[in-house]
């Protein structure tokens, strides 16, 4: 992934006078997630990455909803708001629209973003508000102690579903693409390098960037992502389908020469894409990943390679990254344009109040 600096997504946000370090971004609050929680890794990655942005720390705001991951803002020494279950995208939309000079981040989880807050998430995506949304997906409700979530696999046995859950889960990437998302990516808590690369690209994006982060809950859903974790040459290599813009999509446990053994081709019978053994196809038949394609069809097809049940296979990387005017830029432009010629607000107010049909009593 190559990122152009400075970050276009952060245009208008004032930059720091000098280099920053991770410590400056660490608040004085004790971190209170369970031992082994994947959230620690994401927090460390974010604290390590924020100094790279070179922004004035006071111009960064983290807004969260409710849930384990939503405690995130307390641990960063920026401005922050720990808001209401599901509503963080709405609150962040108002903040980002009102203030061009802020870098606004939303931290949310699968229950927060996709269940109670599903409406706000899809509308933030369609509006393309300049926000970076980190969706921690552990496929379970943690803070309420272990009920199934809207990303849990069908048949999930939990406290609230002793006979197994019945409802089909959301695929967050498919959902975001369907909601007209302009930047949709997926990464994993345990892969610090990939996580940081995706965060960097997300921050660089102007518009709503949705990053789904697979995150392990060691207490209520331990091992949910085990099949896709592990060394690059292990079976995990068969499970992770890495997406890199401009490159043919290849993956799988390497052969003796260290080359991937599987690839993705178009499937004429479904209109989607399919996994094949590289031995069975020509290199030229492989799908070349195009995150910048206007048409999200192929990105959506890629997202369908994700297991809906227990996770044995999932594409990782940036599915879609396209430019589209943002809601907040447009809203501010309307105000700025309308304001021209209204230097004296009091005079303008008087002329507003005295407008219309008036009469005078002497």
């Amino acid at each position, binding site marked *: 992934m190559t990122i152009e600096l400075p970050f276009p997504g952060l245009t208008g946000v*004032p930059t720091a006078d000098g280099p920053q370090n991770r410590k400056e971004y660490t*608040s004085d*609050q004790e971190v209170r997630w369970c031992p082994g929680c994947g959230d620690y890794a994401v927090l460390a990655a974010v604290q390590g990455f924020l100094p790279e942005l070179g922004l004035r*720390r*006071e111009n*960064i*705001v983290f*807004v*969260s909803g*409710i849930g384990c991951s939503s405690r995130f*803002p*307390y641990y960063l*020494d920026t*401005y*922050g*708001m*720990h*808001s*209401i279950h599901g*509503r963080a995208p*709405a*609150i*962040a*939309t*108002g*903040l*980002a*629209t*009102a*203030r061009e*000079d*802020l870098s606004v981040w939303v931290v949310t989880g699968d229950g927060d973003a996709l269940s109670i807050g599903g*409406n*706000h998430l899809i*509308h933030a995506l369609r509006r393309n508000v300049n926000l970076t949304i980190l969706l921690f997906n552990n496929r379970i409700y943690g803070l309420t102690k272990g009920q199934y979530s809207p990303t849990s696999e069908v048949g999930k046995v939990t406290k609230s579903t002793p006979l197994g859950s019945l409802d089909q889960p959301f695929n967050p990437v498919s959902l975001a693409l369907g909601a007209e998302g302009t930047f949709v990516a997926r990464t994993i808590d345990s892969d610090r390098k990939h996580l940081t690369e995706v965060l960097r690209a997300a921050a660089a994006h102007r518009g709503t960037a949705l990053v789904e982060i697979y995150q392990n809950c060691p207490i209520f859903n331990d091992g949910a992502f085990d099949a896709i974790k592990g060394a690059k040459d292990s079976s995990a290599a068969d499970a992770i389908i890495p997406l890199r813009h401009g490159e043919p999509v290849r993956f799988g446990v390497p052969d003796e020469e260290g080359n991937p053994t599987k690839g993705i081709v178009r499937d004429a019978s479904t209109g989607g894409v399919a996994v094949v053994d590289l031995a069975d196809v020509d290199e030229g038949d492989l799908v070349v990943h195009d995150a910048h394609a206007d048409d999200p069809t192929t990105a959506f097809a890629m997202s369908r390679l994700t297991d809906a049940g227990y996770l044995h296979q999932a594409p990782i990387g940036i599915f879609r990254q396209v430019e589209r005017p943002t809601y907040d830029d447009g*809203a*501010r432009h*309307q*105000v700025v*344009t*309308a*304001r021209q*010629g*209204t230097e004296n*607000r*009091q005079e*303008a*107010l*008087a002329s*507003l*109040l*005295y*407008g*219309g*049909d*008036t*009469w*005078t*009593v*002497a």
Partner: protein
Amino acid sequence: MAKQVKQLDRVIIRFAGDSGDGMQLTGDRFTQETASFGNDLSTLPNFPAEIRAPQGTLPGVSSFQVHFADHDILTPGDRPDVLVAMNPAALRANLTDLPKGATIIVDTHDFTKRNLAKAGYDDNPLETEALGEFAVHDLDLTGMTVEAVKEFGLSRKDAARAKNMFALGLVSWMYGRPTDSTITFLERRFAKVPDIRDANVPSFKAGWNFGETTEAFVVQYEIKPAPMATGTYRNITGNLALSYGLIAGAAQSGLDLFLGAYPITPASDVLHELSKHKRFGVTTFQAEDEIAGIGAALGAAFGGALGVTTTSGPGIALKAETIGLGVMTELPLVVVDVQRGGPSTGLPTKTEQSDLLMALFGRNGEAPVPIVAPQSPADCFDAAVEATRIAVTYRTPVMLLSDGYLANGSEPWRIPDVADLPGIDPAFATEPNHTEDDGSKSFWPYQRDAETLARPWAIPGTAGLEHRIGGLEKSDGHGNISYDPANHDLMVRTRQAKVDRIADSLPPLEVDDPSGKAQVLVLGWGSTYGPIGAACRRVRNAGMDVAQLHLRHLNPLPKDLGQIIKGYDAVMVPEMNLGQLSMLLRARFLVDVVGYNQVRGLPLKAAELAAAITGLVESTHDNPSEDTK
């Protein structure tokens, strides 16, 4: 022929027709003519929730009532002196409101068998004795309209649509209204559709000329201008005044205004209006739902804007959790509830005052919210400025309780001098406000102002004041999460105390008791001001004493209220609900107030209320309490 001219001191006219007949426009134009003539006036639009209910049916009837006079009036009037009915349904739906001897002008064109049946008439009331008590003018308004515009080559249907302007012209003649503003209005409004302009302007003139020449109308009426305080006036509806008040409140605070709103009757006009005024630094965000509307407004408030959300009762139900977050995070926020008939979807286009207790208590936990209520359409301006003052000064969500009658009703408004508007200081925090034990400076987001108990408003972008807020309980002062029992008790009481302190900033109440001898007080809030005032005048005109007091602030209640109400032998509280303020007063002051309660979706009627007050005055006079006056 020479017409007779009769002097009247006041008239109530109701224009009624099908939802598609343009009755609201007709009433609005008549109102503008009347306003510019200089009468005092008050209006009551009344329309169905359906955009186009089935044509010709009772549910589809839309009406507009205007009361105007040569003296100061307070209400749109109880019973119309004149009804203009454009079809059988409009006649039938409004007939029971007319007093004996009222004038009825009927467009006979739609009195066909089919339309009569739709309105539930077996026989044509124009041909029976059904209207014997009234002075009926049955005229083919539609036919005359079509005739008047035939030279423009419109289809019969298009031509007939201008019948409302014919009716307006006729009634304008009857009451000697100036016509220039309506002609200018029509020419401007329909500048881009010459066909419609060409139908409307001649119809309007033809209606006037018909009145002037026909022998059917022998009398023209004159209602002299009302004496009014000097100043420049305009006629204004509550929703417009409220919108201007919010713009003024933001301007006086030096803040940009961010409105997050979801369309809902009868509040949508505020969204429409504010969206026209971006040059005042107004951003309007039409959200995906009520929750997002207030959420975005709160987010903008965190960023240093004047956050506003506008809705009606059902929307407040949805916003409750975010109002609670506003209480907890102590951010300024103006929450406008244009109340309508409830519960549930209720009566979307009708008025009610039944959200008072929801505004006060409709949240989880101890979540006090100040409440401000306007008392008349024009007063919505001042109430909105006041709500802004409280929100910004005390860092709190404020509920502004308007209602459907105020929203759509109108009255003359003496336009204030901008220089006289109150200044509001957001006083953003810019410096650390606390010294740590080691002598270093830090920022404590919950360190309070000693006088107001308001916390500092430190907005993102302010270096050195980075902090986190949220819905979890905060420790006093430094604002970190705290589960400490004593701290929670302290914070709950402090949030309440902060709201209570607002009472220190309120002016003394002014009781209206012209004789100074009243033993009965009539106490109200919100849009009942007009009917209560009119009812009290009637009672006084009958030789009795009664005092009137109206509350702008419902939370906190003014400090002198208890003393005042305890000074009367009896206190009546008229409300368009089942006794919500009554309940509060009884609980707070242990005073056995007498409720007068109606939930008919319409403003209280002054005559009925006057009768109730008279009854209370008489019974109190017979049994005065021993320890007072």
